[in-house]
């Protein structure tokens, strides 16, 4: 046996894990080879040094600490996880969440007839009116098929656009449709249907249509109507509130919210369900209709508008949105109560009523207008 062969088996020799013949031949070689003897000594020193290393105890309380952590770990998979694991199907939490949210959204959507109605009517009528004060009275579904989803953004873009003297959608089928809140104002207050000089500079549209600047001009956007109707039939709260105003020169604290699609409907701070007072809609209808018929169709932006539907009073659930400065909320509510019968109201987002200090933004108010009982 040469040194090379011996070297490879020295470890085995030291551990006595070689068979008897090999052990013997290594011993023979070592007795004659001082180099390999030195190697064996070195290796056995190494083995001894490592095996002599003291065995330490883990830190005190090690077991308890491990167990405390282990108890925090939820170990056993739930039965449904085992079920999926059996089929090697992984269900990421995100995917499950997406499905859950989708199902909830569909359920909510189906449960709320008014939301559904909004969707239907918006699909049918794409009227997007670039006016702060637009009031879109949307005819029923059968009229003009267009893309409803364009509405919110376009309407929002044009929210403060006062350049157009008057936005009125073209009405292919006869009956006029009211398109702006000031026009709505004229429903209640036909007597003041003259231009309002105070605001003529910055609000030409309003000045033309709204005779007096309402102190609390609740400008509105009607986003829902479930049947063809003349818009004059709508609850003309803006006009009503305007008529009640005592300080004509005050800037409008209530500004109209833009058209809202059901999918992008924001969460209002307050929600009202009101009933029209049966007396509140008699006379103004005629005035409005006349005004609307004579209204010039103005800009390109208004051309994509809602064709009118056959007129005639019918029970309508209507949703209107208002933005009201917090300090004017009480006044708004008072005037709303004067105009319509408040069936129900609730504060959705606001937790306290002293928003005068705590809230800087305007309040978003949703008013669901039910047909009058009478």
């Amino acid at each position, binding site marked *: 046996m040469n040194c090379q062969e011996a070297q490879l088996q020295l470890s085995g020799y030291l551990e006595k894990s070689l068979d008897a013949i090999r052990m013997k031949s290594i011993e023979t070689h070592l007795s004659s080879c001082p180099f390999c003897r030195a190697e064996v000594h070195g290796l056995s*020193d190494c083995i001894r040094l490592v095996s002599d290393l*003291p065995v330490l105890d883990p830190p005190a309380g*090690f077991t308890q600490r*491990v167990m405390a952590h282990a108890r925090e770990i939820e170990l056993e998979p739930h039965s449904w996880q085992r079920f999926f694991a059996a089929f090697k199907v992984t269900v990421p939490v995100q995917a499950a969440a997406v499905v859950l949210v989708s199902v909830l959204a569909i359920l909510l959507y189906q449960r709320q007839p008014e939301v559904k109605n909004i969707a239907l009517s918006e699909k049918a009528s794409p009227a997007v009116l670039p006016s702060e004060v637009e009031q879109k009275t949307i005819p029923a579904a059968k009229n003009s098929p267009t893309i409803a989803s364009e509405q919110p953004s376009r309407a929002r873009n044009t929210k403060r656009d006062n350049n157009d003297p008057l936005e009125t959608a073209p009405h292919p089928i006869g009956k006029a449709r009211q398109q702006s809140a000031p026009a709505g104002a004229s429903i209640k207050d036909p007597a003041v249907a003259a231009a309002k000089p105070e605001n003529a500079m910055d609000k030409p549209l309003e000045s033309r249509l709204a005779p007096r600047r309402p102190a609390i001009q609740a400008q509105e956007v009607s986003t829902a109507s479930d049947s063809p109707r003349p818009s004059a039939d709508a609850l003309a709260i803006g006009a009503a509130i305007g008529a009640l105003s005592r300080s004509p020169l005050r800037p409008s604290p209530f500004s109209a919210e833009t058209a809202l699609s059901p999918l992008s409907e924001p969460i209002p701070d307050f929600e009202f369900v009101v009933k029209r007072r049966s007396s509140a809609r008699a006379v103004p209808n005629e005035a409005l209709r006349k005004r609307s018929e004579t209204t010039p169709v103005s800009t390109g932006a208004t051309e994509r508008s809602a064709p009118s539907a056959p007129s005639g009073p019918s029970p309508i659930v209507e949703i209107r949105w208002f933005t009201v400065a917090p300090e004017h909320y009480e006044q708004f509510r008072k005037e709303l109560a004067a105009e319509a019968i408040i069936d129900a109201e609730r504060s959705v987002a606001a937790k306290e009523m002293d928003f005068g200090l705590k809230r800087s933004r305007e309040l978003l108010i949703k008013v669901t207008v039910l047909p009058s009982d009478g």
Partner: protein
Amino acid sequence: MKEPSNNSESMASESTSDAACVRRLQRGDINAFEILVRRHEKAIFNLVYRMLGNYDDAAETTQEVFLSAYRAIGQFRGDANFSTWLYRIALNQATTRRKSANLRQKMLVSIDGTDMVDDAQIGPAETLEKKELRERVQRALNELEPEDATVILLRDLQDIPYEDLAQMLKIPVGTVKSRLHRARQALKARLAAYFRAGRKAV
């Protein structure tokens, strides 16, 4: 049924063997895990400590080894012994830890002999010379390739049979033997350098 967890080692009966504890644990009996921790913590801790050369890191890593085992116990199929499986986790974690730059720094610091924690558990009869020798061995282990240190510690410190080593390292027994021989030679070379340096210093 309650298991006295402390005397499990003395009465490694049918219900407290590793395999039985694993089965109980897989059914959700956390007390069985405590038996397993108490039974194996010392061996695992010492292996990890010698691989890392730092007491606190070893404690932390050992804890993580047991918690990893706990989390993964559902995947343990019983193909190997529980201890083999546990060692495999420990080797992986210790190797990863050892390779981290942070620890490399600490290992360099401990070469100065300031970070060796043996003292507390060493009797007063221990001579300074023996202590120095142990420190040298530890430093040499720190400097070895992780797989060399691993095989030396498993075989020479923990006395694990070749067959189990082969299973643990997932290599044939013959390969274990040749790797061990190579690792011992590397350690011997390291220690020889220290010894020479020591002799010169003296």
